[in-house]
């Protein structure tokens, strides 16, 4: 009896543990827009994180002074208008009147001073903003004066950069929350409700939202919260995201695969579409170690060995397209030189000739690539085959993100397959990693540095266009990196979703969207 007794107690305790430890469930209310994202967020303080998914979700909650328009150019958001002093050193920003934070506070200049000062003090962009901004001053409740150390034509674009974006918090918000932002308070059309890790990030319509009446474009202009609630559901596996969309468990699915476009073609009640994104894959050479560092001919041989069209067909099923230049097609400084890519068609004979001239004798070269998203290892394998076809001995090494970051940061690579997400100014594309002050690649070229400096100091658009043409020309001759292909941005939404704007930048905008039965 005793023996059986303790067994019963054990069983009862075990069952009790399961029952007692339950977590609360999800309870939808009102009209709900459910968006399947390809992962969870990692932080809610956007000043402190460069993680892509954080901004995909939270740029529905926070606003910036300037933000990306539909064309990837910077546009005023919380700023009503701005002027630049004749010497180009002082920016005077006038804020939109009556903008409310989710806490009920009205936006004023002190909030801007606080947010930019916070970014200068800590976070991924503190060095950049410290080097750029000399002083920030609240001239009156709606006017902010920002003085720069030196002229920088890309300053507004810097403020609009979505990577660790300069979102505006209420003055003293981090301190009120114990030193770290754990509950987002912004001025966007949706306010934060809760983040249940690996389960849901819930936002709700902000009743006190102040509408910007300017035309809707990208992250800016007229943005109306037309649903009561938005749930971002992290679903890491793309097949499950697609299945959840098909079954109606979610209304929108982000980052689907190219195969899904074909699979769901003509399926009633569902749209799965691809847009060539503005993000593109690129191949970066290492200048701290490895076979390419002092050998421009070898780098050019790589350029001629690559068949970009073949990669597009093999990896994106024709839904992407070749990237002819270091800046995206359609952006302000993309000119005829940028469009005329000398490496647009493969030239294996020239590649072989250059390999001989470069003194290459079949040494093994390691190509480092991201493990995720899966498109990168796929591109790496196609590249490997193309290099082997001209006689290069290339081995692909895929690394998960943390190990890859260490490899990149230490410059411990021969060549490195990566990608560039949308940036608001051409200077950031060309110079962020290849100016000699950037240490990852180790690339040092005085002329490249001079052009990067000129890109920042030149204010006239026509003159800047010339600088970016020169940078592109230099990129193609000295070849510190090779733009490869635009990746397709695939999203799906159900027919009950009206107003969903599929954006090639890949961000999910929950505003101006309605959900029917």
């Amino acid at each position, binding site marked *: 009896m005793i023996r059986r007794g303790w*067994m019963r107690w054990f069983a009862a305790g075990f069952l009790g543990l399961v029952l007692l430890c339950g*977590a609360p469930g999800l309870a939808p209310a009102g009209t709900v827009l459910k968006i399947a994202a390809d992962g969870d967020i990692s932080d809610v303080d956007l000043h402190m994180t460069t993680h892509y998914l954080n901004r995909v979700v939270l740029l529905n909650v926070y606003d910036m002074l300037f933000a990306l328009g539909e064309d990837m150019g910077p546009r005023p958001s919380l700023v009503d208008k701005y002027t630049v002093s004749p010497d180009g050193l002082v920016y005077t920003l006038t804020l939109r009147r009556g903008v409310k934070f989710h806490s009920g506070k009205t936006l004023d200049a002190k909030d801007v001073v606080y947010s930019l000062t916070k970014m200068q003090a800590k976070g*991924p962009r503190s060095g950049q903003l410290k080097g750029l901004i000399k002083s920030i001053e609240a001239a009156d409740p709606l006017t902010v004066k920002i003085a720069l150390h030196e002229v920088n034509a890309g300053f507004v674009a810097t403020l609009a950069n979505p990577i660790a974006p300069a979102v505006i918090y209420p003055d003293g918000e981090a301190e009120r929350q114990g030193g770290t932002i754990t509950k987002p308070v912004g001025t966007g059309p949706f306010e934060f409700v809760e983040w249940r890790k690996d389960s849901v990030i819930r936002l709700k319509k902000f009743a006190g939202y102040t509408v910007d009446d300017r035309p809707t474009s990208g992250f800016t202009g007229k943005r109306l919260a037309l649903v009561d609630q938005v749930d971002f*559901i992290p679903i890491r596996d793309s097949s499950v995201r697609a299945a959840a969309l098909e079954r109606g468990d979610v209304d929108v699915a982000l980052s689907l695969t190219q195969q899904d476009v074909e699979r769901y073609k003509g399926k009633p009640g569902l749209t799965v579409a691809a847009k060539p994104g503005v993000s593109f894959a690129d191949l970066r050479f290492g200048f701290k170690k490895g076979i390419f560092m002092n050998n421009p001919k070898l780098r050019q041989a790589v350029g001629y060995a690559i068949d970009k069209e073949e990669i597009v067909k093999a990896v994106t099923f024709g839904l992407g397209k070749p990237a002819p230049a270091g800046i995206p097609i359609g952006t302000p400084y993309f000119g005829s030189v940028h469009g005329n890519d000398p490496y647009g068609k493969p030239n294996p004979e020239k590649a072989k000739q250059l390999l001989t001239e470069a003194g290459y004798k079949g040494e093994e070269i390691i190509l480092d690539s991201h493990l995720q998203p899966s498109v990168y290892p796929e591109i790496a394998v196609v590249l490997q085959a193309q290099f082997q076809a001209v006689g290069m001995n290339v081995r692909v090494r895929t*690394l998960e993100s*943390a190990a890859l*970051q260490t*490899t990149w940061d230490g410059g411990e690579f021969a060549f490195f397959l990566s990608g560039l997400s949308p940036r608001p100014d051409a200077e950031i594309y060309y110079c962020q990693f290849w100016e000699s002050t950037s240490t990852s690649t180790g690339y040092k070229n005085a002329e490249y540095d001079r052009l990067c400096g000129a890109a920042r100091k030149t204010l006239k658009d026509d003159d800047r266009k010339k600088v970016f043409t020169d940078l592109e020309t230099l990129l193609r001759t000295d070849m510190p990196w090779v733009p490869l292909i635009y990746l397709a941005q695939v999203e799906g939404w159900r027919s009950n979703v009206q107003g969903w704007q599929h954006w090639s930048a890949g961000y999910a905008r929950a505003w101006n969207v309605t959900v029917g039965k």
Partner: protein
Amino acid sequence: MPPLLRNILTRVVALVPILFGLSIASFALVHVIPGDPALVMLGGEGTPQQVVELRKQLGLDRPLHIRYLEWLGRVVRGDLGESLYNKTRVVDELIWRFPTTLSLVCLALLISVLIGVPAGLLSAVYRNSWVDHVARLLTLVSLSLPSFWLGLMLIILFSLKLNLLPIVGYTSVVTDLWSGLRFLILPSCALGTYLTALLARLVRSSVLEVLGQDYIRTARAKGLRERVVLFRHALRNALIPAVTVMGINMGILLGGSAVIETLFVLPGVGQLVITALYNRDLPVIQGLILYISVLYVLINLVVDLLYTYLDPRLRFG
């Protein structure tokens, strides 16, 4: 002191040096694998100076042994530290996620016991018959199926084609038993299929071995009914290796069934393991290793206690 209690106490005391050794090994291992949390946090956008500053802010610039001793001091006081990313306490994170994993694993184990034990027993009793052949074929197939593939197939069949069960979402079985079960059935089946097959094979081979023993022959010679021989004498003795294997598997699964939790979007320990490793969230990784170690030792203790129930010869004292 009763022998049973003495044994439990001895095992708990023995846990201390095991955990101490494990903590040193895991602390060292976590710090030698490539990947710097400061670099991950800066996402490739930081300057070398910023990396140095962030490493200092995170305390990663101090010698390893100092950091270890500080960590150990906190753990002794019941504090596993906090995530480098969102500053949540590791203990809270584990407490919050454990029920999901526990519910999933318990349901998977229940499925495996309910199907695996009868299947193994029938297979042994009807050895070399068509029942045995079918059961063996099914177990072979089940053992060969990767759980993520099986999970996807279950989603396609039961969620998309038959529209019976939801794909994503999670409700606790406490909040709403039926709704909670609806979310757990498919992942538990995907997780439990391998265990069912494993259990069926183990039970079959063990029962076959036991059925050849003298005491079974004696029991039959005494005129006992075949059902009594099978259930009271054969199966009970045959379950000992099965209990061992299930105990080990339960430890593994409670440590995080990462693939299934990721596939079915269940906020359990498995997803935490994946996220912490990808982000090199060192305090969380350390906490998880400690949690898994404690769990393993405790489950082994429970398995030992179950032996005494199944086999009186093994009773303490």
